């Protein structure tokens, strides 16, 4: 356990082994100049006089990561898919005309044809239109759930890691409890009593069960970051808790959170489809891939296309986000360099 406040004496701490296997964040390179005010020292990294870099520009974790990513074909591919998905989510009518709720029973189970490249499902709804509109729901739920989880989890975990002590212990036990709840079972129990037709209960549920993961990562990462010399220096110079947290610790502890959240985004999209498939997630008339997969599954022998297209779209989307997360992790983890 890290020592709680008050601050340790300057120059004593330092080389602790990172906890929780968190990715050690280095950066903000440069030597410390004790003569200047601590803020200036840390904000304006000295430019190049050390002579190690060929250029004058300082190299940070982020710029390194960006340079890596640009050269990574996995990132480019997944990025393009995700850009496309986001575009489709914002403006679905650009590539699919007509309403996804417009169904004509006379066309039920018909195959690919003019105006309906993916054919029609068992109710005579246009599978192409529904697949396109389904992207909006999936991306909305995925992004909002991830944002919620990341914010909630990193704030709680970060504070616990920074202040330590009894709050840290309490929070750690609470996360243990949440980790013990099986996600699908929890969804069946909690969401089955919800009657709302909107996406909010589903997002709320994901945040509720998802935050402990991020919270643990953030806690470990903050604990690592707060041992660093520059934090000790800041503390010695009398910086307030909030200044230390926001200025010095957060920027250096956020990388692992971003990596985990990006990978989790894909799994949240899959989870939304799972819950909707089971009938407790989103409810019609909301258009969702999970609902469509569920509705089409009894017809697999007669109209497999109605099942395969939304399933394929779901698989592709989840894959794209997980690949993106993977690429981001590779770029941000110095150990993998």
């Amino acid at each position, binding site marked *: 356990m890290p020592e709680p406040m008050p601050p340790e004496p300057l120059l004593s701490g330092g080389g602790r082994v990172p906890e929780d296997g968190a990715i050690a964040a280095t950066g903000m390179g440069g030597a410390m100049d004790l003569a200047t005010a601590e803020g200036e020292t840390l904000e304006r990294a000295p430019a190049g006089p050390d002579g190690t870099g060929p250029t004058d520009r300082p190299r940070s974790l982020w710029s390194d990561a960006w340079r890596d990513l640009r050269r990574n074909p996995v990132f480019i591919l997944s990025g393009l898919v995700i850009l496309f998905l986001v575009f489709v989510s914002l403006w679905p009518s650009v590539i699919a005309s007509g*309403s996804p*709720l*417009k*169904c*004509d*029973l*006379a066309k*039920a189970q018909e195959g690919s044809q003019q105006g309906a490249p993916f054919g029609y499902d*068992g*109710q*005579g*709804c246009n599978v192409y239109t529904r697949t396109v509109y389904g992207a909006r729901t999936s991306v909305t739920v995925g992004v909002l759930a991830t944002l919620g989880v990341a914010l909630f989890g990193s704030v709680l975990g970060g504070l616990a890691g920074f202040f330590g002590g009894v709050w840290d212990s309490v929070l750690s036990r609470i996360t243990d409890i949440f980790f013990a709840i099986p996600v*699908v079972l929890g969804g*069946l129990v909690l969401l*089955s*009593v919800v*009657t709302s*037709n909107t996406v909010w209960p589903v997002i709320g549920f994901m945040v509720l069960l998802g935050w402990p993961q991020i919270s643990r990562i953030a806690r470990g990462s903050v604990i690592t970051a707060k041992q660093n010399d520059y934090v000790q220096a800041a503390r010695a110079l009398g910086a307030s808790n909030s200044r230390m947290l926001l200025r010095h610790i957060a920027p250096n502890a956020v990388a692992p959170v971003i990596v985990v959240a990006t990978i989790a985004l894909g799994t949240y999209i899959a989870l939304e489809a799972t819950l909707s*498939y*089971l*009938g*407790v997630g989103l*409810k*019609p*008339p909301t258009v969702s891939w999970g609902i469509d997969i*569920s*509705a089409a599954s*009894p*017809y697999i*022998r*007669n109209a497999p296309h109605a099942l395969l297209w939304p399933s394929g779209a779901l698989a592709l989307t989840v894959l794209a986000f997980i690949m993106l997360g993977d690429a981001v992790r590779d770029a941000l983890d110095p150990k993998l360099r």
Partner: protein
Amino acid sequence: MRGATHAKWAACAAAVALVATACGGGGDSGGDSGAVLSSSWGDPQNPLEPANTNEVQGGKVLDMIFRSLKKYNPETGEAEDMLAEKIETSDSQNFTITVKDGWTFSNGEKVTAKSFVDAWNYGASLKNNQKNAYFFGYIEGYDKTHPEDGGKQTADTLSGLKVVDDRTFTVKLSQKFSTFPDTLGYPAYAPLPQAFFTDHAGWLSKPIGNGPYAVDSYAKGSQMSLRKWEDYPGDDAAENGGVDLKVYTDNNTAYTDLLAGNLDLVDDVPAAQLKNVKNDLGDRYLNTPAGIIQTLAFPFYDENWNKSGSDKVRTGLSRAIDREQITETIFQKTRTPATDWTSPVLGEDGGFKEGLCGDACDYDPAEAKKLIQEGGGLPGGQVKITYNADTGSHKQWVDAVCNSINNALGNDKACVGNPVGTFADFRSQIGDQKMSGPFRAGWQMDYPLIQNFLQPLYYTNASSNDGKWSNKEFDDLVDEANAETDTAKAVETFQQAEEVLRDNMGAIPLWYQNGSAGYSDRLSNVKLNPFSVPVYNEIKVS
């Protein structure tokens, strides 16, 4: 559990994968008359008290473990004497019933006149709160044992029932009811052994009856095992060793189990498989007319559906449903668009009248839109059709009905389906009057009389009047028809009552349903009776 149908399916599939034999079809092969068959089923809503069971799944079991005064012929549906030696009347109001000698319950107790009278008194008594109490409503003294509207119960027994001797009892009705004897095959009129009254809890956990089967064990949510009662005195003894009724929450799973050889009999072929069923099963697929009509009922206890103009909204909804298209595409013509509130199995003489509904059941989107606007629009701008998701492929047709309504009204969100996970839960929600919009109401007849399609469903406070529709004119016509001794005239009066129902659109008729079933090659002599229930006792297992 709201709509969590696939969850249980997944759990069951996992269980099947782990213990493949656990879902096997009986297992004991060899002995012909001793072999047990397995059949798909759903949990009944209530414990199996005969007078408290008014739904299909519980009724299926009662048909196997009870025999009443009459029995409906499995082919024609005609009421034939079973335990009744004779039922005599001179005025259609006072009946003398003689019970056959030699009948016992499966615990050895004799079936006597008292077994019937006690059972009927129990069913009619308000304090026992039986769902089918209403079936005893015409017996004299019912107003004292089951006062309406919160009145105080002043008698425990019906004054119209009198035991004359061991085998004879008399029934006095409060008005003429010419077809009363024909209703006596309904399980609510079944006799009950003394054990039912002395050890009620014990009886509920393992019901004792007088039918060809006896309950061996029941695990709620999983299976009920019924075994042949070897000493059954009737002439319709079981020709197999027993039946295992297995609970399925999704008829697709049951169908898949049938194909995989894990189940012997499915009496509810899923709509999605109707295209394949002939290929899959060949002549092991049954599709026979049955006394079933599917309707949409309305919650008349909700003032949104019970104000002036809402009859126009209901008629408008009826006209917005393209029954022809739905029965053809979703049900592959195993349903027929309904044009009245009865069933073709009654026959013209029995009261079925094609086209009685008239325009009100014809698909006409323009007229539908106009009617709904005239009636003040849909309450809250949207209707939710509530249904149970575990049986009957209801999701498919509810979605189709909603799409039809949406297309007619030109509003994508005018109608949405609202699934309830299980039939039992769905029935409970209806019983608790929790509906806020139209809900699925199917009616499988209890006995093949037009009276049974109208009175229990639409008479004020009747046992299955789920929507609490109430209409004085209708009630009077039904009473009048029941008192009529001339059958043709009675039928005519019932049809007048039906017209009253039509003009107020008390429920939207959707389609007449065929019974459909599929079975494994272990079985032979499988039949569906006019109620669409498999005639279990005649099934042979090889």
